[in-house]
């Protein structure tokens, strides 16, 4: 799973969100490193909706702005969970390697 896709899914894990909030959440989750453009975001949402990972949960007009809310489906939640577990294992392995290297360098 690409990082952008993972971050978009992760941004939706807390509940339904619309485009603007998703962009902000992705930037926040990545510590400002990943800034997803609106064209990229809507392409990703289309693709994820087509794959059944994301669904439209509602729509409204707030202060004259059109909002459509997206939510994770069960499959989307499962995908996020699996990817998070994979990344955790990877990070744990990486920590062990780095620690070993650090110990080797110290001795």
């Amino acid at each position, binding site marked *: 799973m690409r990082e952008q896709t993972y971050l978009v899914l992760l941004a939706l894990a807390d509940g339904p969100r*619309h*485009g*603007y909030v998703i*962009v902000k959440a992705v930037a926040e989750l990545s510590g400002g490193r990943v800034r997803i*453009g*609106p*064209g*990229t*975001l*809507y*392409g990703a949402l*289309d*693709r994820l*909706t*087509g794959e059944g990972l994301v*669904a*439209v949960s*509602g*729509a*409204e*007009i707030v202060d004259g*702005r*059109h*909002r*459509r809310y997206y939510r994770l489906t069960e499959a989307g939640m499962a995908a996020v969970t699996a990817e998070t577990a994979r990344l955790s294992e990877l990070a744990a392995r990486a920590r062990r390697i780095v620690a070993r290297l650090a110990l080797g360098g110290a001795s």
Partner: protein
Amino acid sequence: MAYQVSPLQRRLWQLLTAYPPEWREQRGAELVDTVLDLLGPGATRVGPRLAVNLVVGGWLTRLREHPPPRAWLAYRIRGRRLPARWRAWVRRDVTGRFFIVRDLAFRIAFLAAFLGAQGLTFGALDPWIGWGFFIAMFAVGLLLYPLGAVRLRLRILERHGFDEYGRPLPPPAWSAYGPRPAQQVWPWLVAAGGAAYALAVPWQIVLSEWAALDAEQSPVWIAVVDGGCLSCAVLGFVLTGLVAARLPDRLARRSLVNRGRPVPADWRIVAVVVSLYTAASAAAAVARAAWSGFEIDSLLVHVAVLLVAPACLVAGLVARHVERHGGPVVTLRDLAAGAFGVGPMPHHPTQPVVADAAPPPGAGWPRPQPPVLGPPLAGPHWPPA
């Protein structure tokens, strides 16, 4: 209160023309408002990075909605119906600007590729010959194409369940294909194959030997005769089609349920014949590249003809057999399947076999569109229930 569109909004809508019209209609307002939120209050212009992001996003969306290459080729070359997933794309393609130009450009490119195989056969002799082919085919195409282009447009629309203005027909009108009667098939098949080979292949053999023997022959003259050869082949196809179109109870028609007008023929068998002819030419070309020399080349062309001619004969015999014993509903695909072993023969007379895997009337087709786009943002549907 009148809705005021700011210059910034106008600029954003301009950039959104990169997206497919249907997408823009359903999601455009949402995307514009998201961008306005991201730009913040007081913004007056769209930065180049954002503009590129929107345009690239639009084109990627178009690409995502484009049919896969194989289905697209079948659609473009033979006007074959695409699955419901790409109906919106088809309508946009057919009713869009420059459809005729795009279609003609593709067909010329396809012909050029076809002639490339011919060029390999003759190219070693003189480039004039290849140009003769191309110019002759291009001229014939230019003469014939406008006559069929309008009909092609209507045919594609009808085949995808749209009326002549691109408006969707109600589902019962296009939920399934109707059966096609199997009568008078074999003359059509044999005539098409026979005319093409009778006109094209002997000329190819004669020209191949002639040009190889008489190296001092004027290249212009060779090009003219050579181009004439292919023109004759094309005219052979066209004349055969015209004759076949006047045969009673012709097979190559498919009706849409509840539609009075049948959809015009698609020339599957011509495609089969052209494919075989191209394969034979390509085989000769490969052989020429492998073993240069007059004797080998002439021998290979003859071998190719010897291989292809029986195939035509087999096709004719199988067509005759199927026409007699295959039951009331047979398609050209069934004939090709029997003749060239690309699928099962029809067995049961009461079991319709149609060219495409058609669901029963009223079920399955049109399949519901995937809920990618959602309801439109403007109008009485907003917000959706």
